[in-house]
């Protein structure tokens, strides 16, 4: 396999802070620490190093990416590396910017490394493999070793383990793996329960992410003047599912026009949710998204207007990360449309 390596002006031997504005330099061979990376991988060859100043990539991102992609378009590569960035914030963010762009454009595995406190982690961990790195450049060999080891696994098509075992920050991707020792889930859960009751330590198989609590938004002052929107994770969509929303592990949401509709007629709408028996909701879609009740209240004047669109996705198997993304995108639209409040139905 062939690989290309992105590093900053310091590791690229251009200079320190004084060279942080340096524009991309595309080498026709590996230089500096790229040679160390190359030496750690029998099955992957690092063919080129590209060097970009940390200020340039973060302050002139569009131009930088344009130049970088134009050069990468002329190259053949199977894996892309960046860093390791350790605690260097601009470098970590720079690696993240480039890694995300490369992953999206070329659909190849993208591997980088940085310390868990590097600001690049939170923003970019979903876009690429960010390995947990040390705080300083003294960890170069260790951090590079981790990146190289994983690349070797990819190159030799070895079986990949979940993120914590491989050593990178979880990307929010759920994947089913058969249990190595063949012990059934029912037995594993009993073992876990007995440990819990007995006060012994145990490890959950499904780590629930930490929640961040947000204060309640203020109540609306005058409901009779409000525009209210319906949002739902029930999967109720027009009968041909025009946006092809997935029935589980949804990666998108849809928005459908209900202007003038007094209800969601069966046959015109249905649910595509794979997490429950859809029969009842397909028979009466308002059971999932209560357009009829909302319309009744609107007519009575309890609130001023039912927003012309409802927003929907499927809630089963959908990751918190995607749900957050949908929430943000929908919130943006609602704010633009001056919607005052939301009734969100969940299944």
């Amino acid at each position, binding site marked *: 396999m062939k690989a290309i390596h992105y590093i900053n002006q310091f590791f690229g031997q251009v200079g320190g802070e004084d060279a942080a504005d340096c524009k991309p330099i595309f080498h026709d061979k590996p230089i500096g620490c790229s040679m160390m990376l190359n030496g750690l991988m029998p099955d992957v060859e690092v063919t080129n190093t590209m060097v970009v100043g940390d200020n340039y990539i973060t302050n002139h991102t569009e131009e930088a990416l344009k130049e970088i992609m134009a050069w990468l378009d002329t190259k053949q590569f199977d894996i892309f590396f960046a860093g390791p960035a350790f605690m260097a914030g601009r470098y970590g963010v720079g690696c993240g910017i480039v890694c995300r762009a490369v992953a999206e454009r070329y659909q190849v595995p993208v591997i980088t490394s940085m310390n868990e406190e590097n600001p690049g982690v939170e923003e970019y961990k979903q876009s690429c493999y960010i390995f947990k790195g040390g705080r300083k450049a003294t960890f170069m060999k260790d951090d590079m070793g981790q990146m190289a080891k994983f690349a070797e696994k990819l190159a030799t098509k070895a079986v990949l383990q979940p993120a914590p075992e491989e050593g990178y920050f979880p990307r929010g991707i759920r994947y089913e793996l058969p249990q190595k020792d063949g012990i059934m889930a029912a037995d594993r859960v009993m073992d876990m329960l007995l440990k819990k009751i007995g006060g012994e330590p145990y490890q959950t198989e499904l780590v629930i992410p930490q929640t961040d609590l947000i204060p309640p938004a203020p109540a609306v002052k005058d409901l009779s003047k409000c525009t209210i929107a319906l949002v739902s994770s*029930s999967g109720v969509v027009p009968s041909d599912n025009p946006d092809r929303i997935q029935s589980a592990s949804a990666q998108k949401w849809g928005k459908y026009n209900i202007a003038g509709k007094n209800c969601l007629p069966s046959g015109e709408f249905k649910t595509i949710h794979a997490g429950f028996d*859809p029969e009842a909701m397909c028979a009466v879609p308002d059971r999932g998204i209560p357009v009829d009740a909302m319309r009744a209240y609107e007519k009575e004047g309890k609130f001023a207007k039912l927003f012309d669109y409802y927003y929907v996705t499927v809630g089963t198997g959908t990751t918190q990360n995607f749900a957050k993304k949908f929430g943000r995108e929908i919130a943006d639209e609602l*704010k633009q449309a001056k919607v005052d409040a939301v009734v969100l139905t969940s299944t």
Partner: protein
Amino acid sequence: MAKEIERSGIPVVVMCNLIDVAKTVGSNRMVPTVSVPYPLGDPTLTKEEEWALRYHRVGVALDALATDISEPKVFPVKI
């Protein structure tokens, strides 16, 4: 999704069956629903009874949007 919408300042009332899940993830205004396959309905009821149920619970949800709260609250339903 509800939290992201609420984070932007728009009040949200979450109508859901697994109230504990909603509480755990940090929902603020919550109204219980009938069940997962039919949150706002019940095929075992007559059409009139089902309509009364849906109308009532949606009404509770709308009232919740107009109610100031300082911490997460489950708004009770009568039918």
